[in-house]
């Protein structure tokens, strides 16, 4: 009994920081509809700033003051980020802002390293709260008790702010219906800024509050991110009580998991998340998304056309130049080109899904890594020839995508994206944990192609043929009735269903097809590298693809490939510098602000404006001129 209560207290204390970070994220999402990937970075900043302040400010007052000040400081930083980085892109297409927040992650990571150095900082103890008290004989750290009290107080203050003040009314109104806020005569821009600052401040507060239980280190930004996303999704995006309840549930489940299922530490929260979403698709307190609710849908896409002769000739010339690479390029240039081609195929497969069907997957690496693992597992565990393993990679990934897609397609929008993330993480933890079969994080090694393929140049040609072929095949499918049906479902679900198109089924097959193509890229990847590790399935890999698709331009056919090639190429150069994350982050933010429709989308617009391309704009202008 005593142990049980002590465990409960541990869980509730752990929920504290988690709740604060998650409530901030939830608030930001609820009002601005921004999925703030950088939220973990603000949490990290809170910890570092709090640490520094605690070194300066003396005594108990100094300690608690430092926590409060850290929250405020991070809030101010958040405000600056919102004004400088996000405000310029509110009108960009749905979810585009998350790319900007990804840039912020990179910038913050390097700045933190510059300012505070690489070593982990052990958090200072809370004055007067060292040691334990005994509850029914069980030791409970005093600071846990403090957290137990502080968290509900913060939650209540937040509740008061939201439920009882004018600001709160506006925030709630904005969460329900963003148009209404404008109608109330409130400056929406400042409301967004304020909420973003508040959300970031909460993250900072969480970071500072956990100092006595841990410290500050450079990996904490990503380390908390998954847990926070899980909490927000389980609670229901935009719901504060949901965030609180979910933080408590996750923390308490974790504590008991540690005791009774010690091996489960990785998988448990994702299992909880998947279960909750299966029963309550919009989280405990969430509400279904109204179509197009994200606002910021931007202009509708242009109709697509097969490329004209000129473009075809250009592309053919480009491919020919690439195919001649072994004649003039070094062996390494072929290795590099193979890498870039594979990544382009992977990104193009996500782009196929996002661009045509409008389904945003946060977990696309599951199929890339999945394909790689299918091939590697077959090679490792059965003596089948490489060629067979290679063929099974896309098939396996495609089947996996069909299974996961079948479940995820019950949801839409951000919830769909989050569920794909949860499944990807579930697969990742399976691969990571099931060491006997998958080798765990030591991966599967010595997965090399058959002898006839084992030459750099030959493999380059294989990659060239399959990647370009795959990309062209996806492009062809985009122009086929199936591709059109995907777009139809995205553009108007009502119309599609009312003309006999089974939108869910079309999307499901599209999801499977995109997964299969990602699996093909994964198969190529594993044989080009000779090994595969869980890294190829992790969130960071999914984000890689997501970011380049957005940067290339979701609403263009070539966006995925262009974005992937551009950024993979740039990365190759930039990572040679010491502070490459800073440079890359700033570059991403720059592109986001200057090219809100992605590289291809914005370039096309510029070209139209300059009169190089015919578009609606020129047509309209012509019409006006004619009328005049």
């Amino acid at each position, binding site marked *: 009994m005593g142990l049980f209560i002590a465990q409960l207290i541990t869980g509730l204390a752990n929920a504290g920081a988690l709740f604060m970070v998650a409530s901030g994220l939830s608030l930001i999402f609820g009002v601005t509809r921004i999925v703030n990937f950088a939220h973990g970075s603000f949490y990290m900043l809170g910890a570092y700033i709090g640490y520094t302040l605690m070194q300066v400010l003396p005594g108990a007052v100094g300690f608690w003051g430092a926590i409060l000040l850290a929250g405020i400081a991070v809030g101010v930083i958040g405000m600056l980020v919102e004004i400088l980085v996000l405000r310029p892109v509110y009108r960009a297409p749905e979810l585009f802002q998350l790319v900007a927040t990804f840039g912020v992650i990179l910038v913050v990571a390097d700045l933190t390293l510059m300012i505070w150095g690489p070593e982990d900082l052990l958090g200072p103890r809370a004055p007067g709260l060292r040691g334990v008290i005994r509850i029914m004989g069980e030791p409970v750290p005093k600071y846990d008790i403090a957290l137990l009290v502080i968290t509900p107080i913060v939650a209540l203050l937040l509740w008061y702010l939201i439920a009882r003040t004018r600001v709160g009314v506006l925030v709630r109104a904005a969460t329900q219906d963003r148009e209404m806020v404008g109608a109330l005569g409130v400056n929406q821009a400042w409301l967004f800024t304020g909420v973003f600052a508040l959300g970031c401040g909460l993250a900072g507060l969480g970071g500072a509050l956990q100092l006595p239980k841990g410290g500050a280190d450079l990996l904490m930004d990503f380390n908390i991110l998954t847990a926070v996303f899980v909490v927000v999704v389980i609670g229901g995006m935009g719901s504060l009580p949901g965030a609180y309840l979910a933080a408590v549930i996750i923390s308490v489940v974790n504590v008991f998991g540690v005791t009774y299922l010690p091996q489960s530490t990785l998988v448990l929260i994702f299992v909880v998340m998947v279960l909750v979403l299966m029963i309550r698709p919009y989280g405990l307190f969430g509400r279904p998304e109204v179509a197009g609710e994200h606002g910021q849908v931007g202009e509708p896409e242009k109709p697509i056309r097969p490329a004209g002769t000129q473009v075809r000739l250009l592309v053919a010339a480009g491919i020919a130049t690439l195919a001649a690479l072994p004649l003039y390029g070094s062996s390494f240039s072929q290795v590099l080109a193979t890498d870039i081609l594979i990544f382009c195929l992977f990104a193009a497969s996500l782009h196929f899904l996002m661009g045509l069907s409008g389904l945003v997957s946060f977990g696309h690496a599951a199929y890339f890594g999945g394909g790689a693992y299918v091939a590697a597992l077959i090679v490792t565990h059965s003596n089948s020839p490489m060629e067979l393993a290679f063929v099974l990679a896309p098939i396996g990934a495609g089947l996996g995508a069909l299974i996961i897609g079948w479940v995820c397609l019950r949801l839409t929008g951000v919830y769909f994206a989050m569920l794909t993330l949860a499944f990807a993480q579930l697969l990742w933890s399976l691969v990571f944990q099931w060491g006997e079969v998958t080798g765990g994080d030591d991966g599967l090694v010595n997965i090399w192609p058959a002898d006839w393929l084992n030459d750099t140049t030959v493999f380059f040609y294989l990659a060239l043929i399959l990647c370009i072929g795959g990309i062209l095949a996806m492009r062809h499918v985009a122009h086929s009735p199936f591709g059109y049906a995907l777009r139809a479902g995205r553009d108007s679900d009502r119309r*599609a269903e009312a*003309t006999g198109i089974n939108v869910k089924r079309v999307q499901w097959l599209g999801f499977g097809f995109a997964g299969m193509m990602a699996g093909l890229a994964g198969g190529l990847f594993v044989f080009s590298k000779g090994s595969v590790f869980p890294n190829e399935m992790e969130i960071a890999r999914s984000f890689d693809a997501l970011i380049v698709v957005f940067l290339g331009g979701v609403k263009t056919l070539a966006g995925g490939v262009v974005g992937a090639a551009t950024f993979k190429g740039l990365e190759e150069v930039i990572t040679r510098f010491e502070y490459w994350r800073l440079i890359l982050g700033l570059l991403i933010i720059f592109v986001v602000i200057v090219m809100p429709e992605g590289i291809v989308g914005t370039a096309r617009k510029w070209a139209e404006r300059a009169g190089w391309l015919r578009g609606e704009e020129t047509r309209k202008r012509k019409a006006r001129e004619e009328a005049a």
Partner: protein
Amino acid sequence: MTTASHPPASQSATQARSETRSEAPPSPSPVLETRNLTKAFGGLVAVDDVSFSLQAGELLALIGPNGAGKSTCFNMLMGQLAPTRGAVWLKGENITGMNPRKVWRKGVGRTFQITATYASMTVGENVQMALMSHHHRILSIRPRAHRLYRDEALALLEMVGMADQAERHCAVLAYGDLKRLELAIALAHDPAVLLMDEPTAGMAPRERIRLMQLTAEIVENRGVSVLFTEHDMDVVFAHSHRIMVLNRGQLIAEGNAEAIRNDPRVQEVYLGGGTVFAQEDAADA
């Protein structure tokens, strides 16, 4: 497969069909029928025990003030909503609770009050989409969609007077054009029943008349039965064969233009409610 090998089937088929229809005696059994159709949203009964029938070749208007339950009724007819109670029969078959796709395949087409078209496609492609679905080509990945059933689509667009706009981007169309486009889409599978939810909303008066004349012609030539809702009473009285009035979910009157005009209950609903029999564009359109 290129479009060249597809004969413009739709048109000739239509012709054949309308001929047989005009020769056959008018069928006594209704094409579409509802029995005690009811829909409750929580406590609000949006459609309350509505029974009516639509005869073959009939142009039937369903009118009523805002929020009367007209769109809800339409949604139950085609399966966008499942009724709380009651049944829908199509050509002698109970289609209650059937999903819109199936109902569509059984020969029901519709337009929406808030237009539903594919914003990223051209006008022509919007219609081709419905034709591809009709011909079960949705899942094929070989042919280029832009070329499939192009002639049929152009013929349908011609019918609604939009053939010259076939290559335009749907997103830039005027509202009235979107309504006409929807009509072309709804006709793509040669339906027996056409449901039109406020087909003329957002149009100029002249346009409205043109569209309703067109609708009447379609009823005439293709033997389609049409059920439509409309706020413009001039349009309703001029173009419908029969009128039903819905108020707070209940059918309160039914008959020809004359009967409806003189029905005291109807007058009360419209006049008493402070609205006149006049143009009353759907505010939500």
